[in-house]
């Protein structure tokens, strides 16, 4: 009998899973359900908002992807799940029978508890329709307030600035990008934003969105009011768990999955921003809501759904972004100031850093001579990110090259002796080939 695979969600994890399933199972019946009409890249929405990309440039798969891979794509919302009957119920009344199900329902913007936060004129930026809604308002908007100084908040702020608006960012934390950067590197970006005409207020606690017919401003706990015509919220995302409500699927913050990305219910898997999976740095399941993690999880979940046993190595906190032409890549928990959502105390026992020129910054966090975090700002520093990241992920003791870490370029060669020494941790074919090559 033909295997029936159903995937709920058509973004990074869903598409990657569908593609993997088809590659390995030419005859299987593959169905992808999405409440969005088209498949596009959500991280590109801020580029679209800024006018740097058109709608047709948001596709990360060829337009004929579903036809070419013979995947049925249903535009509907999955509203019910009956694990005991292996059925997903859709908003259009259809009932889909599955042999294996992947939940890739993603996440939705988190709206803070602020009076008037749900009113017309307040937007998140998660879906194409959010971006279109913001764009439709721009002709009548002069001033914008962005709530949140995280990645999405600041991408929105720079996009709206490029569109010619006057932009103010209100940040709860003591500095911007508190989930990504340490204080010193965050200050570099605060300065870059200020220099580009974006006002940033830290430790700002908004309490109300003001206005009657239309948005007039945002009020802070201090009583201060920032006048504006549009409000955009960039306060992170929460996993979309509606579909598993009332089912025995175990959840914590997200859907809990094992290293095969299987949920607690047989035949049901989860991947992407909804899945709480192994985190290599935290040692407990976590959601790193990142595009690369979602794609990898989608692929690994699919392989396990196909019965090919494949273990997920785990994700880690990392990110790469560019603001006003200045790139930054950071990874690891040690970078974050200890706090409820940020880092944990005692993550590192040593830091080394260099700031040879304004806007160029390297900081590496170590614990017991192992890299546990880094922040790289500037065109040249970021080139070392991949090599530092793999040394961190594989927990390689870097004591022999500690003096050189800050000068490290994209040169794997310089750390190759360490990789040879720990070759059992570098199981990938390409690493093994290198080890054999230099071993002669």
């Amino acid at each position: 009998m033909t295997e029936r695979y159903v995937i709920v969600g058509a973004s990074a994890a869903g598409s990657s899973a569908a593609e993997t399933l088809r590659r390995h199972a030419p005859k299987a019946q593959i169905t992808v359900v999405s409440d969005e009409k088209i498949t596009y890249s959500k991280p590109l929405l801020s580029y679209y908002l800024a006018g740097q990309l058109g709608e047709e440039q948001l596709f990360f798969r060829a337009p004929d992807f579903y036809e070419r891979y013979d995947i049925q794509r249903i535009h509907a919302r999955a509203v019910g799940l009956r694990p005991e009957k292996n059925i997903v119920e859709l908003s259009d009344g259809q009932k889909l029978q599955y042999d294996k199900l992947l939940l890739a329902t993603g996440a939705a913007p988190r709206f803070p508890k602020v009076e008037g936060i749900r009113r017309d004129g307040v937007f998140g930026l998660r879906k194409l329709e959010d971006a279109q809604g913001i764009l439709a308002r721009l002709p009548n908007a002069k001033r914008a307030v962005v709530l949140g100084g995280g990645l999405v908040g600041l991408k929105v702020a720079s996009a709206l600035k490029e569109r010619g608006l006057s932009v103010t960012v209100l940040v709860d934390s003591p500095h911007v990008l508190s989930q990504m950067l340490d204080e010193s590197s965050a200050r570099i970006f605060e300065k870059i934003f200020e220099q580009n005409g974006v006002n940033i207020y830290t430790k700002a606690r908004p309490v109300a969105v003001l206005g009657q017919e239309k948005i007039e401003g945002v009020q802070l706990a201090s009583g201060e009011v920032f006048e504006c015509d549009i409000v955009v919220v960039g306060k992170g995302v929460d996993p979309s768990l509606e579909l598993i409500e009332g089912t025995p699927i175990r959840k914590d913050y997200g859907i809990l999955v094992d290293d095969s990305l299987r949920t607690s219910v047989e035949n049901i898997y989860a991947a992407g921003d909804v899945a709480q999976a192994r985190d290599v740095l935290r040692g407990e399941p976590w959601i790193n809501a990142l595009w690369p993690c979602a794609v990898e999880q989608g692929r690994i979940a699919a392989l396990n759904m196909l019965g090919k046993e494949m273990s997920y190595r785990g994700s880690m906190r990392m990110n790469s972004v560019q603001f006003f032409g200045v790139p930054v890549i950071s990874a690891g928990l040690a970078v974050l100031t200890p706090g409820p959502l940020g880092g944990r105390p005692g993550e590192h026992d040593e830091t080394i850093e260099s700031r040879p020129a304004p806007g160029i910054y390297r900081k590496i966090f170590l614990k017991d001579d192992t890299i546990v975090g880094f922040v790289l700002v500037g065109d040249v520093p970021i080139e070392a990110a991949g090599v530092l990241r793999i040394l961190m992920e594989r927990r390689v003791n870097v004591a022999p090259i500690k003096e050189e870490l800050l000068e490290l370029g994209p040169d794997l060669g310089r750390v190759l002796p360490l990789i040879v020494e720990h070759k059992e941790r570098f199981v990938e074919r390409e690493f093994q080939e290198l080890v054999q090559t230099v071993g002669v």
Partner: protein
Amino acid sequence: MERLFCDPRRCVGCRACEIACAVEHTPSKDLFRSVLYGELGPPRRRVQTVGAEPYRVAIGGVALSLSCHHCDPAPCVDACITGAMHKEDGQTVCDVEKCVGCWMCVMSCPYGAITPKVKALKCDLCPDRRERTGRSRYACVEACPTEALFAGTFEEFQRVLAEPIRAVWEGAR
């Protein structure tokens, strides 16, 4: 699939492959014209010193010329938010038209084989060189004066590694 490998015993660290690579990726495809017109970008292949000491090459240490390994699965392909980085007949290919310079691939590549320069630049296995020139497909392999660079499968390369290196001139050390 055919890939490129470097024999560390033969590599003397001359960086001829870097120059050939950089020139191959200019409009003029000519060293002197590309210097004259300012066309030279970064090479997509780099000669690296294995280990820490910068002068090990000179004292008979190990130099190695490295570029994209065309991994499968490729972390850079997973990381790409635009679909620019993709697999094509086993090769890892970047469609620079689609690249927006988010550098997710730079963060993800454990080999440091992607150069962030407005677009993500990496080894493209010289896709049109053979047809254009009638010579070797790969600029770096052709330029290597000591035949350290090798095009083929890893199994074929292993046979090369198993062969001892003999000097042609008997008086060589």
